[in-house]
């Protein structure tokens, strides 16, 4: 579904991502884990076309992203951002927010589809007429997911989708994402700093550090501590809270 080869991303003189390669099969959930500044979100944003200064190869669904038109790409891949407070238009009603991408793509039956999207994410159709500030963080993130699904993409890029939420709400959103992935046969690329979330959500993952990829692991590798690099072991150890203060 996605193939990334020798991806290098620069911001002026700084190199944010250096020589990163990975590929994700159709229907797979792949995680990018790392600490702040490791470049994981930058990879995601670049795939989405939000950074222009990059070199290497990125293909989605077999086609290089630079050759895929913006509209066609929007139907293929969509993104969900970290902060649901910042990613929804504050003066659009929820129905408008979800319908906007469909309008831009001149789809028909928008109203009915808006309702069915709301139902899909577990919100009542009456939410169409509410505004983002009337919703909780978890509800907003559901709306952001509905908007992302409006164009029936096959790939979802998720940038820390639950790190701004309380843990009880995180559980609801993760369950929702997993359900949608199976129902709609989606491919996920999930960025998170939380190894537990990635281990729960993803079939395979890559650990990033200082703009580079440390190693790619399967979930089994992670769970059996089949780690080749010292940094991976350090990250796993630090993530196992409780072990540190036993």
């Amino acid at each position, binding site marked *: 579904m996605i193939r990334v080869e020798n991806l290098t991303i620069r911001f002026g003189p700084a190199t944010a991502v250096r020589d990163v390669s990975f590929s994700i099969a159709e229907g797979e959930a792949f995680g990018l884990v790392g*600490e*702040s500044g490791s470049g994981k979100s930058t990879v995601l944003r670049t795939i989405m076309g939000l950074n222009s200064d990059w070199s290497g190869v990125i293909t989605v669904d077999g086609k290089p992203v630079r050759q895929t038109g913006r509209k066609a790409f929007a139907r293929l891949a969509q993104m969900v951002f970290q902060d649901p407070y910042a990613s929804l238009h504050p003066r659009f009603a929820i129905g408008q927010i979800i319908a906007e991408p469909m309008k831009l793509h001149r789809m028909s039956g928008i109203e009915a589809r808006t309702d069915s999207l709301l139902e899909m994410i577990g919100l009542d159709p009456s939410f169409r007429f509410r505004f983002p500030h009337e919703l909780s*963080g978890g509800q907003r993130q559901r709306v952001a997911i509905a908007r992302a699904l409006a164009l029936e993409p096959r790939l979802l890029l998720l940038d820390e989708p639950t790190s701004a939420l*309380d*843990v*009880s709400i*995180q*559980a*609801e959103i*993760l*369950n929702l994402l*997993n*359900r949608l992935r199976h129902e709609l046969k989606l491919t996920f690329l999930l960025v998170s*700093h939380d*190894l*537990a*979330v990635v*281990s*729960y*959500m993803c079939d395979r993952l890559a650990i990033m550090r200082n703009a580079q990829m440390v190693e790619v692991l399967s979930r089994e590798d*992670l*769970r059996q501590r089949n780690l080749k690099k010292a940094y991976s072991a*350090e*990250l*796993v150890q*630090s*993530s*196992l*809270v*409780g072990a*540190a*203060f*036993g």
Partner: protein
Amino acid sequence: MSETPLVQVENLRISFPREDGTQHEAVAGVTFSAGREKLGIVGESGSGKSLSTRALMGVLPDYAHVSADRLQFRDTDLLTASPAEKRRLRGGRMGMILQDPKFSLNPVQRVGWQIVEAIRIGNPSIGRLAARNKAVDMLEAVHIRNPQQVFDLYPHQVSGGMGQRVMIAMMMAREPDILVADEPTSALDVTVRNQVLSIMEEMVTRRNAGLILISHDLKLISSFCDRVLVMYRGRIVESLTSGDLHKAQHPYTRGLIACLPSIDGPLDPLPVLKREESWAASETHHDPR
């Protein structure tokens, strides 16, 4: 514990005016005490954990309405203390560390001089050089390897973990009796988080101070603190001793633990917390001490 607690809070209530003139009660009768120990307060956003400690520090905005049967720090009754008295306690006897050092440090002053300022407010007679030396010592005490260089850095030049260590150094320079840390590691990476916590622990243990640690992270707090208070909608619903997390009785606490994914956990759908009205209506849990 035979020693009198540093902090005693009884039936603390905090409310905010709504637009329609009614009051929204954000903290609804909280009772706890803290001694020279590590006390954790855990809860989700809006549970009142930060507000409760801010009332203790006296840093709530004027429009917040605070009432309590008792709000005491050592011998000082904070309910009747004058603003000047409370100001003397803050920073001196009571220190506070907030979530993000980016917003707590003055961006246009070198970090070392910010520590010097804290030292000189506490001890106006100390000389400039002596204060500087003390600040460098403090930086060294929070395990900053090259304190002389770090002294001259601006906040934007230090990492989040180092910024938080600077904050700890600044707060501990006045040797407070109690340190309140509100989500001190939530903005930090996991590998740095443990380091900052252990430095904080070392500082309070060495100086025999009390620590109140506020966090949304139940597992972190219960492995780090001696006692944990669990808050839900302005009430303390349960208090636990460290290591007894698995003995948690309250369905809210158990729900919070269960809904966390873990690295080695099952892949089944995560249990979702089902909130019950009765949790918020029930009598607040009394701190057993």
